[in-house]
């Protein structure tokens, strides 16, 4: 993976830089020993590793501001890091950069039931927010599978999703405010406990910006009351087409389930062998449809979905009759990644999104690619919104397999774009999909995005080497070519 060339002059000044950082963040907060930095060398895209120059763990916003200001002034790159669960290499260190870890920002700042908000420091885990309000019957809706580990700051940076996002939205639809620090040290508050931000919606731009625009130091999210009832259907289909048809028919009937997840045969088998959830082994596609809400509604909709499933050719239907049974339905899906990890030494988790109706085509083509690259693939999908997670099985110890897996992955993502979808639905571009960006965007599109970065970080010091395949200097991007004196189209109606 090509990363920005380390700056020799910065590396030469390492000792001086460490001292300067120690003056800002005293004691344990600056880690410069190789062995102690080892845990920061990768995130959940473990194929890539790099020791950072130094790790800084501030614990106040003021410290973050001073660290960034210092780095900006002397030209040091900064990689923010939450829990390091990024699947796209977003938190991959740079040899000449610091890792700015937000782990010490781990407190809930305020719980406000009247306004239905929680304000937390960015290092609080996603589940930590729900846990803080669960005793009052509330929860935070976006629920990535990594929720026990990933941080709310990382969720903002990646605009993370989860199985409940179909009905309740992604991170971006559930964040009300943040405090952030720019590379120049400016501390800025966006939004708050009110519903819409004033001025430009920079909160919306920050969400999903992969740590390239600013460092998030506080987050206010909206919490929801737990639904009265949750019930799930486990529906088996003889083909992925009929499964896909069923998803479309449910939505066409005006039903937006709390969650709607699909697995293909390899994923069903891996999961069943791992957790023994009682999944049918003779079906090609398995759909979990979860309905949540008031009891009367769930009761009504379970019947509707069952009818739809039957008309779509379902060969097996189970309806959860207890909370335990519902959890069993989910157990296999939730354990799909580790289950696949059991049957293969390594796997790559892809994350494209497609228009749902393209599912049969994409699955067929993926099967062909699997033969071509000589690697197996298991599929889990957020079926309701067309977000695919093909898991490509490989063995890093076999020469050439990592490369083959990456090529296979790239082919899948290009196919997603080709059928009208996108490279990444929730895991981010990071380093993983960086060099595929040209397949989705033109140079003009990408340059415009980079110009927005220039407004936040003109020296391009915050998390460089991620997201954009080419780095341009801001001065170069700012240049404009103007053709003087051209008249607008002569037949333009003017009056």
């Amino acid at each position, binding site marked *: 993976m090509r990363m920005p060339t380390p700056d020799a002059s910065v590396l030469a000044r390492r000792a001086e830089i460490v001292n300067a950082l120690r003056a800002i963040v005293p004691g344990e907060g600056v880690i410069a020993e190789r062995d102690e930095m080892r845990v920061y060398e990768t995130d959940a895209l473990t194929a890539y590793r790099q020791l950072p120059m130094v790790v800084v763990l501030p614990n106040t916003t003021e410290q973050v501001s001073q660290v960034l200001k210092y780095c900006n002034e002397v030209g040091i790159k900064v990689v923010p890091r939450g829990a390091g669960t990024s699947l796209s290499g977003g938190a991959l260190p740079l040899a000449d950069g610091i890792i700015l870890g937000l782990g010490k920002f781990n407190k809930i700042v305020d719980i406000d039931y009247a306004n239905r908000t929680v304000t937390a420091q960015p290092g609080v885990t996603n589940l930590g927010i729900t846990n803080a309000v669960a005793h009052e019957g509330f929860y935070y809706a976006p629920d990535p599978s990594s929720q026990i580990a990933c941080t709310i700051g990382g969720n903002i940076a990646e605009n993370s999703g989860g199985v409940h996002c179909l009905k309740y939205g992604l991170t971006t*639809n559930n964040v009300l405010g943040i405090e952030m620090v720019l590379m120049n040290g*400016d501390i800025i508050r966006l939004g708050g406990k009110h519903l819409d931000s004033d001025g430009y919606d920079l909160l919306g731009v920050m969400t*999903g910006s992969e740590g390239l625009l600013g460092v998030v130091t506080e987050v206010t999210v909206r919490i929801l009351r737990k639904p009265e009832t949750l019930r799930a259907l486990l529906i088996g289909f003889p083909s992925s087409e009929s499964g896909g048809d069923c998803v479309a028919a449910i939505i066409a009937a005006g039903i937006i389930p709390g969650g709607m997840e699909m697995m293909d045969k390899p994923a069903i088998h891996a999961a069943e062998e791992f957790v023994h959830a009682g999944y049918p082994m003779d079906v090609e596609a398995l759909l979990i449809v979860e309905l949540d809400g008031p009891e009367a509604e769930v009761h009504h909709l379970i019947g509707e979905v069952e009818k739809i499933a039957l008309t779509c050719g379902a060969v097996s239907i189970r309806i959860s009759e207890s909370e335990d049974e519902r959890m069993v339905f989910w157990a296999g899906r939730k354990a799909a990644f580790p289950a696949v990890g059991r049957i293969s030494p390594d796997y790559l988790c892809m994350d494209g*999104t497609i228009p749902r109706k393209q599912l049969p085509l994409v699955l067929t083509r993926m099967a062909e690619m699997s033969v071509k690259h000589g690697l197996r693939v298991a599929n889990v999908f957020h079926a309701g919104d067309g977000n695919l997670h093909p898991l490509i099985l490989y063995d890093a110890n076999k020469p050439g397999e990592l490369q083959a897996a990456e090529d296979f992955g790239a082919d899948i993502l290009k196919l997603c774009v080709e059928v009208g979808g996108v490279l990444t639905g929730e895991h981010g571009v990071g380093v993983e999909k960086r060099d595929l960006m040209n397949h989705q965007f033109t140079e003009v599109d990408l340059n415009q995005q980079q110009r927005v970065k220039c407004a936040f970080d003109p020296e391009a010091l915050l998390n460089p080497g991620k997201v954009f395949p080419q780095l341009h200097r801001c001065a170069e991007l700012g240049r404009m070519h*103007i053709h003087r004196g051209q008249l607008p189209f002569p037949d333009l109606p003017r009056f």
Partner: protein
Amino acid sequence: MTTHSNKSVLKPADADQALEAVRWAISEETPLELVGKGSKRKLGRPFQATHTLDLSDLTGVTLYEPEELVLSARAGTPLAELEALLAENRQQFAFEPTDFGPLLGGEAGKQTIGGVVSCNLAGPRRVKAGAARDHFLGFQAISGRGEAFKAGGRVVKNVTGYDLSKLIAGSYGTLTVLTEVTLKVLPAPEDTRTVLIRALDDATAIRVMALALQSPYEVAGAAHVPASLAGALGVEEVAGGAATAIRLEGFGPSIEYRAGKLRDLLGGFGTVEFLDRQPSLVFWAALRDVKPFVSTPERLVWRLSVPPADGARVVADIKGRLPGAEAYFDWGGGLVWLAIEPGADGAGQAAIRGAIGLSGGHATLVRAPDTIRASADVFQPQQAPLAALSARVKETLDPKRIFNPGRMYAGV
């Protein structure tokens, strides 16, 4: 907006012509006023522009796949046309955009989808479904650098690159010329009904709305209208006195069940009544379009966005400072529509923004004569670092200040 009469109008027939017009304006360094059907022309600060770029000929649906919950249309397509198409398929834009036409002295039903998105409109369903920004998936646009570009896509789950759709939603046409927009659509609810609790004062109403919004009964609207304004909504059943309204939407059996639960939950606070589908639809549309203040055009109208629980306190504070002020609440108290007397000192901004003060939130002067909007801060003034950042963002998309310059903030 200087005098409209002596402004020359450029009316491109398609996106290519719009691009040509923008390139020409850049080369002439002459600012453009971007308009669709002009229903929100009087929203924002008046600004100087020698030419109007009328985008109302960029019309037509370019993609609609009901089962995929997605629709794309050229930016000048009338909202009414899109809503009719969606209704045929029992779908809707769930963010329920406000129609500012009548409030600002124009006709109803005039706005275009590009304008709706550019102003990030949202109606009462905001508490459940979000605003235009939350449904805006992608766009094609022309930058103030004279380049056509795109961002986002047609799928809901998409984190590929920065979410520039959010930036453009609510930028009031100061960053780009939108030529085509893609939005998420959702099933329209099968039925709707409103639970009314009568005769509550503002503070109690805020508590009642909070209880409803904290409940698991999927409230799709929570508003409070004091007695003095209840009559102006045009719904006979509501006219009699203060009304705190909780909207329910969904499948018949579910509504029936939730209405019963809410009656049990809130009945202790006041008399409970129900509005059936038809009056309910009229009520929420009137509330959304600020109907209570349409018939008194001389008064200044402010829109306040505050933490919901602070709504009543903020309004009481303002009433103490500005005699004659009247307000009603949407979004559980988080959205305050406020009318004040025309002569108020500085358009009331010091009193209003002072009252919002530390709770956080902001106030926008929505209706006032040009002269007042030219001298008052129409949008909430921002702290220096944020204002500087916003100006730098403007610079990236519109370095020559061609698009609606100064409509939001001077120099932006």
